[in-house]
């Protein structure tokens, strides 16, 4: 019989125990577990995730452990809202508090959610970053994300012409 907890080793060599239910919310860990059925229960190495970030991921999984699986959720939503664009509103109060962190931490969690393939958490982090970008100028975005401007003035003029406002627009 499979044990109820799983050991994982993080990038900073910490061994963390997490419940099988939480571990299975990560498609990456889940497929590793399926692959290693019958093998010795060694700690699963997660070299791309630090212990600090993994704890955050576990916190999120604990709060959302009873949520319906993402596929079921989409099917339910599609009955009513099939033609709506992607909604970036974060409705859960707990989630709002969860994303209220430094950008560095948010990006770390986003990368971890992508690596671990935790769909709900990945969506939440993407929504939060998208909300961060809304209403900001390119300069503000570059400053916030530490990106260097590598576009020429000609490139920018062409983009403004193709996507910018026209005089007749109200």
């Amino acid at each position: 019989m499979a044990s109820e907890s799983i050991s994982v080793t993080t990038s900073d060599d910490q061994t963390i125990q997490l419940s099988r239910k939480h571990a299975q919310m990560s498609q990456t860990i889940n497929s590793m577990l399926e692959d290693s059925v019958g093998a010795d229960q060694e700690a699963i190495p997660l070299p791309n995730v630090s212990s600090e970030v993994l704890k955050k991921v576990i916190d999120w999984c604990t709060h959302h452990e009873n949520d319906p699986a993402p596929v079921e959720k989409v099917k339910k939503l599609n009955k009513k809202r099939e033609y709506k664009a992607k909604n970036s509103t974060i409705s859960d109060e707990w989630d709002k508090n969860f994303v209220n962190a430094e950008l560095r931490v948010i990006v770390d969690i986003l990368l971890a959610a992508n690596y671990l393939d935790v769909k709900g958490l990945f969506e939440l982090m993407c929504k939060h970053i998208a909300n961060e970008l809304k209403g900001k100028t390119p300069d503000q975005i570059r400053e916030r994300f530490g990106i260097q401007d590598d576009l020429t003035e000609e490139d920018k003029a062409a983009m403004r012409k193709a996507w910018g406002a026209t005089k007749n627009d109200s």
Partner: protein
Amino acid sequence: MAMIIAGGMKRATLSIFQRQQSTAMRSFFSYFSLSHKVHPMEVPHCAILQDDILFHIFGFITESSDWLQCMLVCQQWYHNMSWSVQSSLPSKNPLFHMAMKGNLKATRRLLSLPRVDVNGQRMKVPLAIALCQGHDGIVTELVRHPHIRLESDDIAVAVASAWSLGKRKAVRAYFNGLPPRGRSNAFFWAVAVNQFELATEILQQPFHLDERERQMVIEKVKFRGSRSKTSKLTKALINRGK
């Protein structure tokens, strides 16, 4: 038995190794593909967002003004944002969203893009949304668009709903943009479903209604609904005959 277990372990180890190696390689290349853009002293860590992650983030940005701001950040963001926008256009989701939010500027821009197929049946959805939200500017833009062909029957229920919701300006904008034949169809539909107030409104618009049709409608209205509800329409029909 031991061989099976050993085989399982080997497969698992190999699988984990391959997964880690591919992720490590992805991170390695994405770091170097971005490192030239990042100020060395400023949190370069935040800038390591791979293309697939950026694409996903941009999927949540629906305002066209924000699209442009993101495109103007750098080459990588420009390519990902334009890819994200272009790939969502055939589904018309941005158009639905803009029609719902009443963003006239973005609606015009989307309608002018060649990848937005304005000839399909699904065009009635943004129009229905704009009508029910009362965005008369968007309704005018959609109805007057030279390539959008809409029969009044396609959208009749949305027009009636908008009217009952009090979105009078949007409904008038819709009838102003309709050809006379469409108004005539809408008028007979409104009478048939007892939408007398809406029928009275349509009657203010120019369309062909011959004497025989006028008399027929007057007779029909007599037997439908209470007098208070039908009197305005009857008066309007009588005035039209003068």
